[in-house]
């Protein structure tokens, strides 16, 4: 499997995989019983566990031709519901390194970015065409270019939208925000000293 994301991320190369349907929630991506863990390490095998069981081997994540795929193509409001980071962690540990969809739920989107996984946006029509070509030719190799906001294959090039802030963080490799936040120690101390509710409202005149 690919190494987990690290540092600057400019392109993602590999096969793609499609999951169709709107409003696919994070309980579907990783059912709650798998949240009983103190580490994310083993989540890869449990991604979409109930859907895969129900589809008995025919779920895209079980199809032999799609094993090793790194780009996931989805529809609208993907990742809604619970804030569990276990959902993108499970996708990432299965091998997903980028998502392309019509839209993403906000917390899921932020969780992906914090792991170095871009979520790019395209139109309903373009997504359907992408999903169809992935399922028709699973062996196709794709390149997601973060800077150019494009997905490229031998079938051609399609334009995508990647939020400017996310694009910058990925390209510069500062999507792992902790150190940048800690650089602002003085701001943090000042905020703590300034906010009325942390200081017995002392600056407020009664």
């Amino acid at each position, binding site marked *: 499997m690919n190494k987990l994301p690290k540092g600057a991320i400019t392109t993602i190369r590999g096969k793609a995989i499609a999951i169709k349907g709107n409003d696919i929630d994070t309980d579907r991506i990783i059912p709650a019983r798998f*949240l009983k863990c103190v580490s994310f390490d083993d989540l890869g095998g449990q991604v979409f566990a109930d859907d895969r069981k129900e589809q008995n081997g025919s779920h895209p994540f079980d199809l032999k031709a799609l094993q090793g795929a790194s780009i996931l193509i989805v529809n609208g409001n993907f990742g809604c519901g619970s*804030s569990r980071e276990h959902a993108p962690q499970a996708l990432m540990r299965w091998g997903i390194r980028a998502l392309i969809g019509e839209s993403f739920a906000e*917390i899921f989107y932020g969780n992906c970015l*914090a792991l170095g996984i871009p979520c790019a946006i395209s139109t309903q029509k373009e997504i359907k065409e992408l999903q169809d070509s992935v399922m028709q030719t699973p062996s196709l190799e794709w390149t997601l270019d973060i800077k150019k906001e494009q997905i490229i294959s031998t079938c051609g090039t399609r334009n995508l939208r990647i939020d400017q802030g996310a694009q910058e*963080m990925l390209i510069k490799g500062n999507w792992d925000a902790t150190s940048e*936040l800690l650089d602002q120690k003085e701001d943090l101390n000042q905020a703590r000293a300034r906010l*009325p*509710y942390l200081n017995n409202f002392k600056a407020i005149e009664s």
Partner: protein
Amino acid sequence: MSSGTLYDKVWNLHRLRELSSGSTHLFIGLHLIHEVTSPQAFAALKEKGLQVLFPDQTVATVDHIVPTTTHQRPLDDSLAEEMLSTLESNCSEYGITLHGLGSNMQGIVHVIAPELGLTQPGMTIACGDSHTSTHGAFGAIAFGIGTSQVRDVLASQSLTMSKLKVRRIWIEGQLNKGVHAKDLVLHLIKHLGVKGGVGYAYEFAGPCIQSLSMEERMTICNMAIEGGARCGYMNPDEITFKYLQGRPFSPSAKDWGKALKWWRSLVSDPTATYDDEVCFNADQISPTVTWGITPGQAIAIDEKVPTPEALDPNERSLAEEAYKYMDIVPGSTISGLKIDVCFIGSCTNGRLSDLQAAANVVRGNHVAPGVKAFVVPGSEQVAMAAQAQGLDKTFIAAGFEWRRPGCSMCLAMNPDRLEGRQISASSSNRNFKGRQGSANGRTLLMSPAMVAAAAINGKVTDVRTILTN
């Protein structure tokens, strides 16, 4: 862009600077943690050699994995025990207050923080749980985060975030008898959609909201996330202040006058501008029940399950999936649908007034044969207050089980779960496929009073028919 709203004011007070990525470095006033989304965050801190910056601004409890039949240690489930003991050792190592098992302050994180007075107007509040929007009922800006962000808040008491747009949802009128906050919020999500709120904070306002109790307000803000809005809030008023006065972590009597003055200054200005405004009328809302697999797939109790033709073309494929999964026929009535399990509890509807509303329905009645019905108070405080009023006896006499506090069958991370294709009437917040612990279990969301009515009749029932008898 919005201006002059409570959201703008609280955002500006906590905004530290714009980061190179264009997002904002935002200070977090109160950080709440629990056993499910924090262990990996503490592990990451250790891996990076970092400390918890301001441990007194983080508060912990245990809720998701707690069994509700007994809180005895060690827990029977060794994975649950490992999660709980990991939380205990992390809190002890980093000096974080834990309201753990055995404490009379333990309970669901979104129930205990408000009832202890930790949640206050004007705060930014983050927690690794999407229902953190609950705390917005007090005029706080509160939102759910993932585990990487939990790590960031532990390390820096801050995170990166982009400012949301603000939609004001104005509610005219008053809720009718037998119609509750849960019905109102399900009605709103039905009309605005499960992704209608993506990119927005929802400000709930208007005469109906002003008339609601804090517990009813929390039910509405709790489910903002089910409408796609990461954050929902209400302007604080006299009802908010009265609720907060005298709670263990509320401002002291000495500081109370100053706190009130500051809180009042945060309310959205009459001249505030919003990115969007919508209006609803509470008078027209009936008890509302979900029939499908998202909280937006809801109907009034006297309506029929929509046919595909009646739906927006973009909603049809999800509706088809829902008919099949739920085994519900388009065009059928929801009233009369047979129920196997009744669950009253959760961060949406596990507070004292929720239990009172349900008790008023069950008093003098009995759970229908073959139905399993149980009540899980949201916290130890709720349980004690309910027991002091004899509500536990009312429920037990009616054939309900009376359990210990926790998240329970809202997400079934503890032993409480549906079996096979069982169908539940549930006062919780999500009816997703498999949500209540069985991969093909089915959930109907409704108010606690409606769950109580379903328990009595063994089928989905308009609670107003029981209340008038």
